[in-house]
């Protein structure tokens, strides 16, 4: 065959034009989902929408929220996918979110959708407050497993309970706000006064108490169900207890950042995030999904986790957050040394 440079050039030109014709949109997506899930979520989405590429920016919930707020006047993100609903409400109240009703939003559990119409955020899944209880250490010390939140104030648990500090952990705040909503203000603070007597440390992160219980550094870790299941799978001798009064919970949620230059692509991502397919994807780690009726049980967790969730008022939590945290700090932060 004779080599013809012109035809090669033409072929190249065609390829070039074709490749620009399906030019892909790059979306900057801020997230706080687990590091191990990043690649899986990205691959599943990009398979469904090959012309959109996700660039993850990931950090813990607190850091991500701080970052978004710091960028208030010059947002860098197109979409937030996988951040606590309470954090998104905070952003909403700063006018940072673009309201959008994704296709299929009506199929979701109403508790997982922003109350405004069109909603500013839509939920993915939930993490539910739980107690991680180290059975080996408990046996050594001869203490029984707690059944309820109120049990935790019993003297036998003195110095054996660890919980996240609500002032630095979203999970900690979730617990406190749930107690306030469940028990009423007066009883809730009385309960926390009692609990404080038994606490050996307030941690900075929400999953640490459970991992501490897993490693025997404490007997009881107030945390949430996800790290519990993970620690159990890694060989930790723990039971995951859902207290009988009910558990506080937080939704992981999705929202479009107002002012994005890629609104169409952002909408497609949010459409995907509420789809049945996406929810099945979330199900690998999370037992409670925004899409009702499709959740399969997660290993080491009971099938009825969703029934343990209290009626959580995100708006109340967001608007009273400052006052609650200030009161909490006033009561308990002054404790300067762990009582031994």
């Amino acid at each position: 065959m004779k080599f013809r440079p012109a035809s090669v050039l033409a072929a190249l030109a065609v390829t070039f034009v074709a490749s620009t014709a399906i030019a892909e949109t790059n979306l900057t997506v801020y997230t706080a989902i687990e590091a191990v899930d990043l690649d899986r979520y990205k691959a599943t989405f990009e398979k469904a929408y090959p012309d959109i590429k996700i660039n993850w920016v990931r950090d813990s919930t607190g850091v991500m929220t701080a970052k978004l707020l710091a960028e208030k006047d010059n947002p860098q993100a197109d979409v937030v996918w996988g951040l606590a609903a309470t954090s998104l409400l905070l952003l909403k109240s700063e006018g940072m979110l673009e309201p959008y009703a994704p296709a299929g939003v009506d199929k979701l559990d109403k508790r997982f959708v922003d109350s405004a119409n069109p909603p500013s955020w839509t939920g993915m899944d939930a993490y539910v407050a739980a107690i991680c209880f180290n059975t080996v250490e408990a046996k050594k010390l001869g203490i029984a497993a707690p059944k309820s939140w109120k049990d935790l104030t019993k003297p036998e648990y003195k110095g054996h309970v660890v919980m996240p500090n609500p002032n630095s952990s979203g999970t900690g705040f979730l617990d406190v706000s749930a107690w306030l909503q469940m028990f009423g203000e007066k009883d809730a603070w009385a309960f926390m006064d009692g609990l404080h007597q038994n606490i050996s440390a307030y941690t900075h992160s929400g999953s640490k108490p459970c991992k501490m219980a897993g490693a025997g550094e404490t007997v009881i870790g107030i945390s949430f169900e996800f790290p519990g299941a993970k620690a159990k799978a890694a060989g930790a001798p723990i039971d995951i207890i859902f207290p009988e009064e009910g558990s506080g919970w937080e939704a992981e949620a999705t929202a479009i950042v107002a002012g994005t230059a890629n609104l169409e692509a952002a909408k497609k991502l949010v459409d995907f995030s509420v789809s049945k397919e996406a929810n099945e994807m979330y199900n690998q780690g999370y037992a409670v999904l925004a899409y009702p009726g499709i959740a399969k049980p997660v290993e080491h967790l009971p099938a009825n986790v969703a029934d343990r969730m209290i009626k959580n008022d995100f708006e109340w939590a967001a608007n009273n957050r400052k006052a609650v945290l200030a009161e909490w700090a006033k009561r308990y932060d002054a404790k300067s040394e762990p009582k031994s």
Partner: protein
Amino acid sequence: MSAVVSALPAGRAPRLQLSSDDVVRRGLMLVIALYLVLALAAPLYVLLSKSMSTYRFDLNAFEIQRSDDSGTAFGPARTVAALNADAKAITDAELDTGSDGRLSLTKLYEDFSFRSPVKYRIRGTTNDAAFLVGSDLKRGTDWVEVDSNTFRRVVLRPGRSVGFDNFVAYFSTPSLAQAIWNSVLMGAISTVLVIAIAFGLAYALNRSRMRFKGLFRLVMTVPILVPSLLPGIALVYLFGNQGLLKGWMMGHSIYGPIGIVIGSVFFTLPHALLIISTSLSVADARHYEAAAALRASKWRTFWTVTVPGARYGVISAAFVVFTMVITDFGLPKVIGGQYNMLAVDIYKQVIGQQNFEMGAVVSVLLIIPAIAAFFVDRIIQKKQVALLSARSVPYEPKPNPGFDWGCFAYCTLIAAFILTMIGVCQLAAMVKFWPYDLTPSLKNFRFDLMDGGGWASYYNSIEMALLTAVFGTIIVFTGAYMVEKSDGFRAGRSLFQFLAMLPMAVPGMVLGLAYIFFFNNPANPLHALYGSMAILVICTITHFYTVSHLTALTALKQMDREFEPVAASLKQPFHKLFFRVTLPVCLPAILDISIYLFVNAMTTVSAVVFLYSTQTQLASVAVLNMDDAGDVAPAAAMGMMIFYTNIAARLIHAAVSRVLLSRTQVWRGR
């Protein structure tokens, strides 16, 4: 003749002409001074102004109309201030708040009921006034009508002003003010302990004839090679509730002051030892001979000759240790339990509560003791007089088996403490599930499965440390050269010198937070640097600028100032002198600066914890985040990776030094 002279016009006043060399030198000095202004002074200024930025509810900025029971006929518009003047429901103290403050309005109406048919209208009186209906943001002067049930959910947002209210708020919160006391107490206790231990070590290393001095010196520098979080993790494994040596705690908890003090001793010891050892290494034997001739007891000689000779070193070391302890953030974060310290408070305010203003307030508070310590130290240093004169006779310790073996035992004890701390981290990193499954495993090194950035963060750290070492050395050495070897331009040089000394007094966290405020401002043309590797490098160079600068200055001062005039008279441009003479002569110092910057860039947490982005996570920050998430064993594993990298860097440094120095420093031997 005189008449002729007086008739001549007055000549031009004689003036020293700037040579082109001088212009280039001053230009370079200006460039580096500009770097220090942009990377240090400007961010600190922005931080200070941020700490004064307060939030307050302005009740005059909102108006409310209320309807009667029909829900259609509205009364007159009244400002919230006027309503409150009647109802006296909101106290003045409640008006001061933070950036996320919310003020509910229902208490303005005594008879408020969410079931009533009464309707409310609310609006701002200015375009900036903002309020929320539920979580929807409303802004401006348009009326928003809501029913009683919705009015429950209306909250006002604060406006911005300037003042000292943040400081007042900080000091009136007992738990926060307690942090100041805690920090000072921990600093003081750790300082006393470290100085005592380090003095003993320095004494043993310089004034005894014990064996293995070189080995001990090496072991004592180990803590410099690991992040300050690592001793915290080691203490958890040693003395935590599942600790190997838990019994030693006699029922006390390692989480809290005890852990902070032990960990602080560990990571500040090398610094104190270095300073005190230098001051003990020189001594005039004639003083000791005189003491012996006067029949002074050994004890008395120690207190009247040895201690006074080393006192400036001791004081200097005390200030360095104190500053390090109160500004360190990694250690109390890991082991501090509920014991609140200032540096951790900044982190909690910024990351936990997104309260940037309060973070700035704590930063300003943290800077005060650090700057005070810095100036006291400078004053004391000026009083230091040369101990050695030309007629001094170097002191040589005589063998004394009892004393030497005592020293040996003491050094072995401290070395064992240091090696145990490192060893236990290595051990914990290598087992499957501490303490329940102790089978050896490399599972904890699979960083990609954990929070914190995975192996990428490790490679990022190496890249960052290399860039810091290369660019930092160039910037620091050029700056020091321009200050030391330029003539004239005195004001500019002393200003430069001040800027170069300032980083020593600025805690890393404060610098990091100042960088957020300065660089993450869209109006700043340098905004593009935010979130990049460059900002991490700039921040780290600036953070460790002072010690590097002083090292370079010391080396340059050893060179006779005659070199420059000689070169000028030979009509040689200064850059030729610089590259042909100055640089080769100062090579040992330059290598020292670069390894110092590399090692510190690998281990620093505090300065970069606010600045890294997803693409630029760092190993030291990964240690923090993994520990935070409860993955303590992987955190220990990453800490050990940093340790091994720094050892490798040290070995390469030693090899390179040997080769280069044998080529360039032969003259020193003559």
